[in-house]
């Protein structure tokens, strides 16, 4: 039984990765999960310099989901390179660094700093709804997306994954723009912009007013977008959005994802990523699937 998949020349032992921002750099969850069992660890977004993030409350629970407006708090690339990469190198898993920035230069600075680092893939977050500058602005305009993809691609030593925002009219247009810019892989979806109001306090539930909706509530939107993109471009896709268990992971793979990321589910069950790895293997045994690659995009 083969569970290995290939993302732009990088072989993951299985399609299961962690969704950026929900898993730190893996240290905290390493008490619950053997990181070496995962296809890859996608780190929390890191910028060229440290970011303080947004005021609290930064999260709110919603029906079958949650809103977050962390605001990309991060220690900056220097601390990350010195602390988080060596930590992750202890494990037999791929290291996928999620990169954020306010300007194209910010992104490029991070990407260049990582050039000589033992990092396998770079995931470029151009779709964070929770910071004012940069972030989602790049992710909602195909021309901007293509341009920034080009700039980053020029400088990146590792294959680049462009992470798409679902807050767009036509996700395939964005996917094609990223492809045109030279993206090696696409990941989707980032969070849907949402809001919650506390009717007793008559106040916004997160200080930032709006935040990103994640969790199983958004899964149908995510599956639809993965399907649409898989049928529009020829790049491999990392699918995510509401994956809670192996069944959900397989749904994304059948829709066209080569790999998947697990986000909000970690908060519901800190051991979930490893359970998903096992569950995918069980499904393959049950249906006698010899190679996971047979399942990718198998429903059309």
């Amino acid at each position, binding site marked *: 039984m083969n569970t290995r998949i290939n993302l732009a020349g990088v072989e993951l032992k299985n399609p299961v990765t962690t969704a950026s921002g929900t898993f730190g750099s893996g240290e905290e969850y390493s008490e619950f999960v053997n990181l070496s069992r995962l296809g890859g660890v996608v780190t929390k977004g890191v910028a060229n310099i440290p970011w303080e993030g947004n005021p609290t409350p930064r999260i709110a629970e919603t029906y079958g989901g949650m809103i*977050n407006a962390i605001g990309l708090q991060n220690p900056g690339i220097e601390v990350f390179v010195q602390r988080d990469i060596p930590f992750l190198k202890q494990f037999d898993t791929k290291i996928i660094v999620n990169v954020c920035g306010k300007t194209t230069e910010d992104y490029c600075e991070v990407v260049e700093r990582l050039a000589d680092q033992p990092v396998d893939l770079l995931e470029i977050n151009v779709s964070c709804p929770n910071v004012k500058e940069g972030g989602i602005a790049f992710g909602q305009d195909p021309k901007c997306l293509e341009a920034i993809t080009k700039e980053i691609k020029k400088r990146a030593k590792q294959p680049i994954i462009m992470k798409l925002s679902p807050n767009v009219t036509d996700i395939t247009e964005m996917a094609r723009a990223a492809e045109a810019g030279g993206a090696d892989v696409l990941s989707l979806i980032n969070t849907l912009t949402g809001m919650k109001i506390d009717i007793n306090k008559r106040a916004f539930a997160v200080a930032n007013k709006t935040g990103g909706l994640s969790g199983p509530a958004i899964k149908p939107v995510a599956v639809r977008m993965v399907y649409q993109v898989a049928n529009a471009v020829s790049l491999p896709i990392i699918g995510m959005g509401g994956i809670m268990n192996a069944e959900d992971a397989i749904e994304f793979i059948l829709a066209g994802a080569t790999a998947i990321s697990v986000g909000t589910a970690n908060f519901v069950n800190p051991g979930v990523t490893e359970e998903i790895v096992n569950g995918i293997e069980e499904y393959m045994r049950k249906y006698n699937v010899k190679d996971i690659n047979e399942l990718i995009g198998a429903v059309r």
Partner: protein
Amino acid sequence: MKDKFKETAIVIAQEEIATGVFSMWLKTDRIAAEAKAGQFISVYCREGSRLLPRPISICEIDTADSALRIVYRVVGQGTEEFSKMNTGSQIEILGPLGNGFPLKERKAFLIGGGIGIPPMLALAKELDCEKNIILGYKDELFLQDELAEHGNIYIATEDGSCGTKGNVLDAIRENALEADIIYACGPTPMLRAIKEYAAEKDIETWLSLEEKMACGIGACLACVCKSKETDSHTNVHNKRICKDGPVFLAEEVEI
């Protein structure tokens, strides 16, 4: 170095000890053995539309029987769900989480306000020194008798129905109490007032803070508070309440 566990605990007993305030004893597999006063557990809902665990302080630890006690107020649907559980119910929990109170055996104030009172019981039991325990309530009392077994109790109620009319600081002043160290848990305005009082009197003070949480283990950065210095982990002025706290030295944090 695994010191946190996700497990299915069993409800040993549950009781409503004041209007809407429930005391629940949980049989745990490994969590109780690791737990310390001031730490908390994440309690998961069974209802799948509520994904995030509820952080609840540890109120008592019974290592012999591998049991934990929590005392919580019903404020929303999650705590409502917990309050409906009976002896034998299964409940998913994650813990023990956070740092806990440092046990410094000096003349201490243990100050609890409202639903910040429960962790003071675990602390009072672990702390072997002279303890003045000051409890602030709106009106209805709970846990005061059990706390009285471990120190001198002073009560403040907003409506004056018991003890000092006013807040915990009013009770401290009214009784001319003094301490070398303060441990406190309760609503932010209370903690803020205590921080100020302690700064004036130059008393070492440990505050237990609250914030909305997602992961509960320090990974998601949902639950930060502002710190005076750049935090060594985050590299910015933010500390994670779930991991670096919930207990902080008062002057370390901005509240």
